[in-house]
């Protein structure tokens, strides 16, 4: 933040307000500020109100957009959300800290491990415990792999939204390689509940290095194919370059993070700027764009897959031996064998899985860099075994605010490219 001049930030804020893009304003207020004449029912003129979604092939689930259009040009737009609201934050208050990970993992279903990670980090900070090194490295390994799978999914959907239907299958195929590894480690392909307060659920299975190396050998070649099919393709560049442009100041004042912020040239990555886990011990580059358009956001994600692979390679080399979870009887359940021989172990086991462990009073905010930006978890504890309040800062939700600004004066075909480049996950937006 310090590097940005406050005045430019303020002027960006004013500009966005006059655009009518800031959703915090009520509609009338936004209209007054921008001097915009809202068309009346009888006076629509050449304009047309079009409803896009919640059932539309390219609104990434159940996003709904209300578009005001002049021919094919969009004059105003407004995202409408809430079609996938499941009350996860409230549910989180009803579940113990141990059960919490099963709940949060369902939010950003394309990057479940990040949800578990940020929740666990927050709980651990409240507890004041430190996860052993191996546990931290495993968490880092899994989240980088998850970043790859999430970005590969983006490659698939982005390609499909722009009409390169083959990409959908190719992106999915590569993601499958990563998911297969997840299944081997966690037992599940999605919603793993693998990263838990206190460490991870299980150690890495034997032969994981070989399995990972095989994936790391396959994917670079496939990414080269992506380059051939999309990056260098003239139609592809025409469709994305100069579409959905946003400046760094605008992105910051809207709170956008992740590839959207980085595409503007503002290299902000929590892994580097507020290191968590062991990110200060691996080498990687933060990829930043220069134009803030859809093409930059696409290339950033493609490059981030390569960076993640670089990190994974380093993790394979540096993975330490040791325990993968805290040996604190109050937090981690005892090993199965101990239950048969020790009365205390049995009691601990019973207590953990019925009542859960108590967390000291306090509040905490922890943030990690998810594939979509800053994923934050805010927990208030009242000293019981359930959070008093749990709030998640979903990057998709905040990034979605940029949509009206990005889509202003663009074509209908561009909206699809823009929605895709924002890469919203509705599960995380509605929670």
């Amino acid at each position, binding site marked *: 933040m310090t590097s940005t001049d406050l005045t430019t930030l303020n002027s960006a804020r004013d*500009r966005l307000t*006059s*655009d009518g893009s800031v959703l915090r304003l009520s509609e009338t207020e936004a209209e007054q500020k921008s*001097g*915009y004449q809202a068309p009346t029912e009888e006076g629509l003129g050449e304009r*047309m109100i*079009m409803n896009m979604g919640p059932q*539309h*092939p*390219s609104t990434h689930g159940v996003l709904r957009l209300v578009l005001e259009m002049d021919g*094919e040009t969009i*004059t105003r737009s407004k995202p409408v959300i809430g079609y996938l609201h499941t009350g996860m934050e409230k549910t989180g208050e009803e579940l113990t800290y141990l059960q919490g990970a099963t709940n949060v993992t369902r939010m950003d279903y394309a990057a479940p491990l990040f949800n578990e990670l940020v929740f666990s980090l927050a709980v651990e900070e409240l507890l004041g415990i430190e996860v052993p090194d191996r546990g931290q490295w495993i968490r880092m390994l899994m989240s980088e792999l998850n970043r790859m799978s999430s970005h590969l999914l983006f490659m698939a959907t982005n*390609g*499909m*939204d*722009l*009409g*390169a*239907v*083959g990409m959908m*299958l*190719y992106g999915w*195929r590569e993601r499958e390689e990563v998911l297969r590894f997840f299944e081997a480690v966690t037992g599940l392909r999605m919603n793993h509940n693998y990263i838990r307060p206190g460490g991870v659920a299980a150690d890495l299975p034997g032969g994981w290095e070989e399995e990972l190396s095989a994936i790391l050998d396959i994917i670079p070649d496939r990414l080269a194919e992506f380059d051939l*099919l*999309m990056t260098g*393709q003239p*139609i*592809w560049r*025409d*469709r994305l370059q100069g579409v959905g442009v946003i400046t760094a100041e605008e992105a910051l004042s809207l709170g956008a993070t992740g590839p959207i912020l980085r595409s503007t040239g503002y290299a902000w990555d929590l892994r580097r700027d507020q290191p968590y886990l062991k990110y200060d011990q691996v080498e990687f580059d933060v990829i930043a764009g220069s134009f803030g358009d859809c093409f930059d956001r696409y290339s950033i994600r493609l490059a981030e897959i390569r960076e993640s692979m670089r990190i994974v390679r380093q993790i394979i080399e540096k993975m330490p031996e040791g325990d993968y979870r805290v040996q604190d009887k109050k937090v981690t359940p005892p090993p199965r064998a101990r239950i048969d021989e020790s009365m205390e172990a049995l009691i601990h086991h019973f207590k953990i899985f019925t009542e859960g462990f108590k967390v000291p009073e306090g509040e905490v905010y922890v943030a990690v860099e998810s594939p979509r930006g800053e994923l934050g978890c805010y927990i208030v504890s009242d000293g019981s075994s359930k959070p008093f309040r749990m709030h998640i800062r979903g990057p998709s939700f905040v990034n979605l605010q940029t949509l009206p600004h990005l889509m202003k*004066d663009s*074509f*209908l*075909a*561009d*909206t*699809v490219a823009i929605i895709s480049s924002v890469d919203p996950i509705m599960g995380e937006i509605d929670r």
Partner: protein
Amino acid sequence: MTSTLQSHVIAGMLANDPLLSGEVGLTTLLVVLIKVVVAFVGLLLSVILMVWFERKVIADMQNRFGPNRAGPFGLFQTIADGMKLIFKEDLMPERADPFVFKLAPFLSLVPAFLTFAIVPIAGSFNDGLDGVVTILGQQTFMQVADPQIGILLFLAMSSLAVYGIMLAGWASGSKYPLLGSVRATAQMVSYEAALGLALASVLLIAGSLSTNAIVNGQAGFRWNVWMTGLVPFVIFTIAATAELNRPPFDLVEAEQELVGGFHTEYSSFRFAMFFLAEFLNTVTMSAIIVTLFFGGPSGPTFGLTNWVGVYILPLFWFFSKLLVFLCMFVLFRATLPRFRYDQVMDLGWKLLIPASLGWFLLLVAVRVGSDQGWNLAATGLAAIAGLLAGAFLLILSIRASAAKRAAVSLPGEGT
């Protein structure tokens, strides 16, 4: 005597086909009937195979199996899909215009069938046979009709097909189809111009509108693709892809933007008719490209004048050439992302139309030069210099108008 003369005149107006130049008897009618049925069934079969082929090839390219349940290798999948569609409920939106809504699929389907009538699919063009075959003692061409307007029928039919799509979108009384039909109208009308101008180059070389004559002129590998200097072929192929609304020009039914485009509101057999028309058009357009640029069914017949030389070999050549273009359309679909609406218009008006017009003028200059006995090299160079000057002026004017547009701020663009 007068009646014979009259029938000659009428037949001449109707067609160049020797079948219709004499008295019209029962056998003549029978031959016409046979040709119509064969063309209809053949086209329908090839479309069924084309759908299967496209799905199978794309599935292979995308690491999938593709249709493999109905029949051997899933060959009957299209038939199964068609049967399913017939039994589906036929829905019509409340705000639709019922008559136009029902008419539109026919407007789309019928021209697609009719165009194929002028495509010669067999007959030997070597040994002075000129594509004439003998069926039931009647001499005829292996095409349903060879009218004097010839290839113009194709342009007329593809213009008619625009109405099918435009009216379908308009009559649906719904917003997405409306946008689709507006896109379709603009796109198809502008690409028709490029299509016609590229066609003009071929007609200049062939000197006739008759498809039989066009193919006959290309016998012995004097194919128009190089006789016209490749450029018209490239332009024609691009324009044809746009005219067919196939990827990368499938903005009309861009499912990621417009859900289904003009046919969003159509279901049941009416949808099947649009679907069928699209693939019919693909096959017919490939056949037209083969006819215009690659000598249609002409090819080496090894001196054979029996049924092998007249039917089998020409059919083989025709379908091999056809398959190349069908493959091309499938590969386009499997690999290319979609253009945006304004980019398609730019490509059409700023590149394809000027280029095809310029190339046509160049061909004309060379033609006139050789007729008048001028120095051919000098004529060619002068023509190219003239065209380059024209292109330069065009680029300047495009730049100037773009700058002028940029200077005028768009409505609603801030204060």
